[in-house]
């Protein structure tokens, strides 16, 4: 069943129409790999879906709820989480970074601590708790960012090339975390290049060409 659907989604930069998507439907519990050439708009599409970038037009549906895509509804931000290709960590602490979204949702202190502890254990970050976030390696930052997203239990997870620029070991650790994350029934869209293709269960393929999406109903190769 379709969880998040969008129609007539358009985005231009100046005169250039980058995206013009007639219809895109993401099903509950399915995982999608989003591919396309460099500059084809993969990142922009994820950013539109997350509401970080404003669309020119579009209508959406989440579950049975219909809405206008611009302005992006605040309530949808609680369901959809976007993780940057190179995640930004706030200049606080690893634990505070993970707690950020929980604070924003008004989760009370005791429950927040419990959830943050669970996320730290999940992403195996215990040994990094005393390290300032700015001193973490790329792979460690990616794990903190995934823990920060995981703790919010989003319905839709949007990841922008999560394994790009990582060394082999960090890449494997990130993929292991993604498998665990996606196994928990959240819908995920992962932008990546073909060579970085991440094999997850129920993986479907979305391909961006000339600003339009080609949705393949079968499993990705």
């Amino acid at each position, binding site marked *: 069943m379709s969880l998040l659907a969008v129609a007539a989604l358009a985005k231009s930069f100046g005169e250039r129409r980058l995206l013009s998507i007639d219809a895109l439907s993401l099903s509950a519990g399915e995982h999608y790999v989003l591919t396309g050439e460099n500059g084809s708009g993969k990142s922009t599409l994820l950013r539109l879906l997350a509401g970080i970038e404003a669309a020119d037009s579009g209508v959406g549906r989440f579950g049975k709820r219909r809405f206008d895509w611009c302005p992006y509804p605040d309530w949808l931000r609680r369901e959809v989480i976007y993780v940057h290709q190179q995640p930004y960590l706030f200049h606080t602490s690893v634990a505070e970074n993970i707690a950020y979204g929980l*604070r924003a949702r008004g989760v009370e202190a005791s429950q927040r601590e419990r959830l943050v502890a669970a996320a730290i254990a999940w992403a195996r970050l215990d040994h990094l708790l005393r390290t300032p976030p700015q001193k973490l390696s790329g792979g460690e930052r990616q794990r903190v960012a995934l823990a920060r997203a995981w703790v919010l239990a989003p319905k839709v997870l949007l990841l922008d090339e999560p394994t790009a620029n990582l060394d082999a070991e960090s890449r494997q650790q990130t993929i292991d975390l993604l498998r665990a994350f996606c196994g928990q029934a959240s819908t995920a869209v992962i932008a990546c290049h073909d060579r970085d293709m991440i094999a997850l269960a129920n993986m479907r393929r979305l391909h961006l060409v000339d600003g339009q999406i080609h949705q393949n109903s079968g499993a990705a190769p």
Partner: protein
Amino acid sequence: MGLLDATHAALRLLLSGDAQLWTIVGVSLSVTLRAMLIAMPVGIGCGYLLATLRFPGRRALIVLIQGLLASPTVVVGLLLYLLLSRQGIFGQLHLLFTQTAMVIGQVLIALPVLIAFSLAALQGADPRARETAVALGASASRVGWTMLVEVRFALMAAVCNAFGRVVSEIGCSLMVGGNIAGVTRNIPTAIALETSKGDFAQGIALGIVLLVVALGVNSAFAFFQGESRR
């Protein structure tokens, strides 16, 4: 009196706890701290709004504020004098030659510094910081607070800069304060007065205090910055 003798006399004055001298120091610190307490939230808030909002005339406003960075304090004092004098539109408030007038003047001098520097700090911030806060579901006010915390060291530099400018300014304090002993005589106006009278000891003693205050504030800033980067 030679420079060496004057400096000796100045140190004796400082160490003897000369009441007149320490009253002048008290006026300076009290006026400047009050001005900074008012100017900081307003200046940083305006800097944030300028960095965040897009509206017609924004560009011109930024250019104007950057221009005001170089405004001579004596001109600020002159404008304020005209507004507060008996014929001025705020003449009824009887604020001329009071500490309140000096506070207002110093707020006006500090604001362009705080606005321009906090705007620059926020514009220089990593764009992913705001996006991450938004993506994690933060409200507009939480996003704003997060951004200010992320650029806190640049903001502290802005505050130090503004503090240094107002604690040492003389033009505006002289114009709207009037250099009244025990009331509106602060360190810069006293130094100018004592030096013109030939009393270098008091001038040098006050100069030492001013330097210590300015260095103290900047050292504290450097210390906090160093602590965070260890």
